[in-house]
């Protein structure tokens, strides 16, 4: 459990005390409380669940295999589509011979890009607030050219998946291979061919930032450290691949799409616009989503193609990516080369950061969030935890013939944090100061907020100092340092790495809306009292495993004042829920949660009004506790909610003529006080490096996180742990490897390494709670910070372990081979 208490209430943290289950002793996970920790004031009148680790509603069915994922759905007359994807990085499509494929058993339709383009418009993915950004028109299926290995070119629809795959074997596509742009380092050279000649160059976006007196700061510095950091292109590997079922009802002229997705209203809008349909004729429904992490928040070309095929066939069409095509058609991310330096004084003051970031994003900017956001975030975030005032950054986002990249869990944070914290560690070493002490001296102090970071980012309120204090206690830092010293004498090389971080959460419209993207920054909740006294809650943010359903239930129960079991959730159906943004940028708790709280408070007030009329009392004398209307003074029950519901719904004849019970309310919330609400935290990694093999053993990982009010500690801890391991994947294992022709050479799970349980460390998590004042709930996001900090912490720990050899490695993934190279052994 986490270290802080929110309320003085003593509800057990056991998931659900009424469920049978063996009694199990809690493993001790409690760390000494920080003296600065104070319980937060309750945010509702009947606080029982907010802040407690209660079971989330979907866990019980999922653990029994009774969830419904998209591939589990079978609709009448449903057909299946498979795509012929470009086998090369860049080619001209000369001729498509589908005659044999059309003759195969079960084949319903074979369609190419020109067929689809008749009913679906192309798109250009740029954002107005990213000045000068450009991209080229993109179609659901490639027309004349395919621009990456994996771009869909031809669709085959058949009665069964097997039949479609059989037909794919006899489809003939004549291609002429074109020169691919593979290396991002030479993408802008005059000799490099242009991917889209009409754009004039291979540059998607560039940004320069120059704040303060950077040259002067470097000139007067006692220590300047410069390093080139490399980050491997990697991908999300959601265990459930991308999938959808498009169902076109030609009589109703209505499109329903069952989609494994994070932002259903965004897709509703895009389908309506690309197919020229009224928005009211498009419905997007999400069921269980088998992992998303940002992979399932983008509009993929095959999404539109599948919808088009359903219209053409007038039948439901199912698309489920197989794992091999996931590797080359899901978005990639994180391929950056950052040359960066830091200036510091002898006394341990950070004077300036400077960095030059180059990133390759594939041949098109991804629709509709664009592929320039990640690099833009890196510029915004480098140096973010620290109080220095001098910062220069240069960013170039270039096109290349590889799978498009876009926002994936952490979005730029893992890059920015690794660059910042890698430089900070080296600067501390250069001036001979302990890395934790160096950070302590340089973080923006906890009493200095609101503050503005050197890049211009607005920071509402952070707690770096409290987090650093807490992690030092958690890990018993002095003892670990002594242990490392002793083991080095014995030829065992261990190291500790720290990463202080900030994370952007609860975004306002500044993220996408101001740039012209129709992606909602607000969310809504509709809440209804049912006649039995149950509460039906519909929210515009869905559930992908993080436990949004769990925290919404907790907030609703507390806000109205009913038992958790009385609350039922309805999510992820654009025909049903309020309109909203969905899940991205760590906004489910902070934005969606606030909408639930506001709706709950409004419903509670309306219930009290109805009770006052029924009881002929003043509403101010009444309150709600545990599903009962009570006397506000004595808390004695005066009216059961089920009785209230019965009268309100079935005996309106007994109520005054001028009074109508309003037992269903809707409230919305958008965070408008800041562009983003930043969170902060610190992580530490403890590793052992074998200098003979280059193998890294992860011994332990610690994280202190401040996501404001913690609504469910267990769920937050697990978000952080999962995100940390995802970050470790990028730091040590994961990379989409390409050959010189732009072909991905490890596009299978046998070759693309992901973290498995055997290599991963135990992770201790603790919290500091500094609520945002931009909402009543005070919650900030927690889903991505783990991924932001883990790569930096692990990389720094490895370099600490390598320090006796004067060896360093700043290229992720830090593979055994790279470590041996750093050691001069290969």
């Amino acid at each position, binding site marked *: 459990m986490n270290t802080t208490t929110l309320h003085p209430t003593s509800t057990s943290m056991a998931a*659900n005390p009424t469920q049978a*289950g*063996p009694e199990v002793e809690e493993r001790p996970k409690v760390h000494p409380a920080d003296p600065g920790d104070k319980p937060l004031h309750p945010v509702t009148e009947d606080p029982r669940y907010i802040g407690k680790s209660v079971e989330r509603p979907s866990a019980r069915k999922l653990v029994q295999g009774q969830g419904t994922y998209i591939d589990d759905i079978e609709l009448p007359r449903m057909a299946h589509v498979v795509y012929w994807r470009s086998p090369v990085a860049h080619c001209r499509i000369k001729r498509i011979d589908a005659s044999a494929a059309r003759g195969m058993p079960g084949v319903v339709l074979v369609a190419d890009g020109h067929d689809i383009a008749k009913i679906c418009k192309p798109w250009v993915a740029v954002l107005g607030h990213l000045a000068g950004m450009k991209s080229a028109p993109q179609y659901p299926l490639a027309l004349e050219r395919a621009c990456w290995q994996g771009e869909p070119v031809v669709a085959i629809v058949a009665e069964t998946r097997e039949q479609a795959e059989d037909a794919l074997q006899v489809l003939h596509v004549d291609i002429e291979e074109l020169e691919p742009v593979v290396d991002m380092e030479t993408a802008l050279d005059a000799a490099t061919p242009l991917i889209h000649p009409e754009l004039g160059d291979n540059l998607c976006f560039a940004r320069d930032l120059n704040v303060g007196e950077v040259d002067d700061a470097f000139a007067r510095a006692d220590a300047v450290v410069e390093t080139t950091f490399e980050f491997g292109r990697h991908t999300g590997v*959601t265990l459930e691949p991308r999938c959808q079922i498009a169902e076109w009802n030609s009589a109703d002229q209505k499109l329903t799409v069952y989609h494994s997705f994070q932002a259903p209203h965004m897709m509703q809008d895009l389908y309506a616009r690309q197919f020229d349909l009224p928005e009211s004729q498009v419905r997007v429904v999400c069921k269980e989503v088998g992992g998303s992490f940002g992979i399932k928040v983008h509009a993929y070309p095959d999404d539109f193609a599948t919808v088009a095929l359903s219209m053409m066939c007038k039948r439901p069409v199912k698309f489920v990516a197989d*794992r091999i095509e996931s590797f080359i058609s899901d978005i990639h991310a994180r391929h950056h080369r950052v040359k960066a330096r830091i200036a510091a004084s002898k006394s341990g003051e950070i004077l300036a950061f400077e960095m030059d970031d180059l990133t390759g994003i594939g041949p098109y900017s991804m629709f509709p969030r664009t592929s320039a956001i990640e690099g833009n975030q890196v510029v915004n975030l480098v140096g973010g935890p620290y109080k220095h005032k001098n910062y220069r950054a240069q960013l170039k986002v270039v096109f290349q013939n590889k799978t498009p990249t876009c926002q994936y869990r952490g979005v730029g944070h893992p890059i920015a944090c690794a660059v910042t914290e890698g430089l900070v560690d080296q600067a501390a070493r250069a001036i001979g100061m302990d890395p934790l002490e160096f950070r302590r001296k340089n973080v923006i102090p906890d009493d200095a907020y609101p503050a503005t970071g050197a890049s211009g980012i607005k920071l509402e309120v952070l707690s770096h100092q409290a987090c650093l204090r807490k992690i030092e206690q958690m890990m018993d830092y002095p003892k670990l340092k002594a242990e490392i010293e002793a083991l080095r004498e014995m030829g065992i090389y261990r190291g500790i790495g720290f990463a202080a971080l900030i994370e952007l959460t609860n975004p306002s419209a500044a993220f996408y809306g101001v740039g012209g993207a129709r992606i909602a920054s607000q969310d809504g909740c509709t809440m209804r009292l049912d006649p039995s006294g149950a509460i039906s809650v519909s929210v515009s943010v869905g559930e992908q*495993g993080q436990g949004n359903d769990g925290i919404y239930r907790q907030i609703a129960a507390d806000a109205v004042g009913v038992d958790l079991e009385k609350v039922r959730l309805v999510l992820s159906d654009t025909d049903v829920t309020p309109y909203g943004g969905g899940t991205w940028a760590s906004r489910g708790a902070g934005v969606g949660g606030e909408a639930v709280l506001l709706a709950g408070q409004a419903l509670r007030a309306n219930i009290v009004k109805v009770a006052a009329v029924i009881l002929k009392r003043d509403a101010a004398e009444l309150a709600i506790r545990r599903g009962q209307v009570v006397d506000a003074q004595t808390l004695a029950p005066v009216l059961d909610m089920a009785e209230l519901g019965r009268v309100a719904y079935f005996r309106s004849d007994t109520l005054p003529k001028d009074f109508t019970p309003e037992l269903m309310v809707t409230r919305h919330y958008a965070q408008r006080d800041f562009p983003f609400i930043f969170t902060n935290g610190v992580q530490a990694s403890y590793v052992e490096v074998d200098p003979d093999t280059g193998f890294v053993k992860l011994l332990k990982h610690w994280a202190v996180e401040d996501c404001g009010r913690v609504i469910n500690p267990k769920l937050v801890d697990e978000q952080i742990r*999962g995100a940390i391991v995802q970050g470790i994947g990028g730091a040590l294992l994961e990379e989409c490897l390409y050959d010189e022709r732009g072909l991905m050479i490890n596009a299978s*799970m046998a070759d693309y390494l992901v973290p*498995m349980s055997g290599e991963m460390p135990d992770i201790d998590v603790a919290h500091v709670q500094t609520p945002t004042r931009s909402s009543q709930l005070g919650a900030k996001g927690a889903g991505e910070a783990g991924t932001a900090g883990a790569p930096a912490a692990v990389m720094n720990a490895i370099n600490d372990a390598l320090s006796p050899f004067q060896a360093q490695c700043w290229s992720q993934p830090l593979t055994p081979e790279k470590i041996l190279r750093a050691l001069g052994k290969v």
Partner: protein
Amino acid sequence: MASFHTLHVEVNGQPQKRSVQPRQHLVDFIRNELGLKGSHLGCEHGVCGACTVEVDGRIVRGCLTLAVQTQGCKVRTIEGLSEDGDVRDLQEAFIRNNALQCGFCTPGMVMAAKELLEAKPDASREEVREWMSGNFCRCTGYHAIVDAICETLAERARKGQKVGA
């Protein structure tokens, strides 16, 4: 058209007689022919473990086993296991520890952990991590899954339960 074989197999205690193509994977047979959707397809090349099911008491990859290979066998899936209650304690521990997020890997995790509980009742935390290394989870980071299994091992040891009882 491909030839068909008559397959006799017992799935979750129910005898089944079905006509199947020799190329059909066991997990496709279970999902598409029998409608048992709890076993999931994560990679279809034997790495992720989401399709793990039990054949004659041993866990196998449902995507690397052909349906016709189970001729005369007893197959158990997450649905049968849940119905029988053999791993109720393990499933409760998963819920208690939030050892599942999106739930896509979970049936395979439970199948793999069940075999561990029976085969290595005194497994250490490190051995649990090693044993579960054939099953990919992108959400949890594994810590909570390992906690849930270790708790169940400890609880069974304390109660002196027999294997599988």
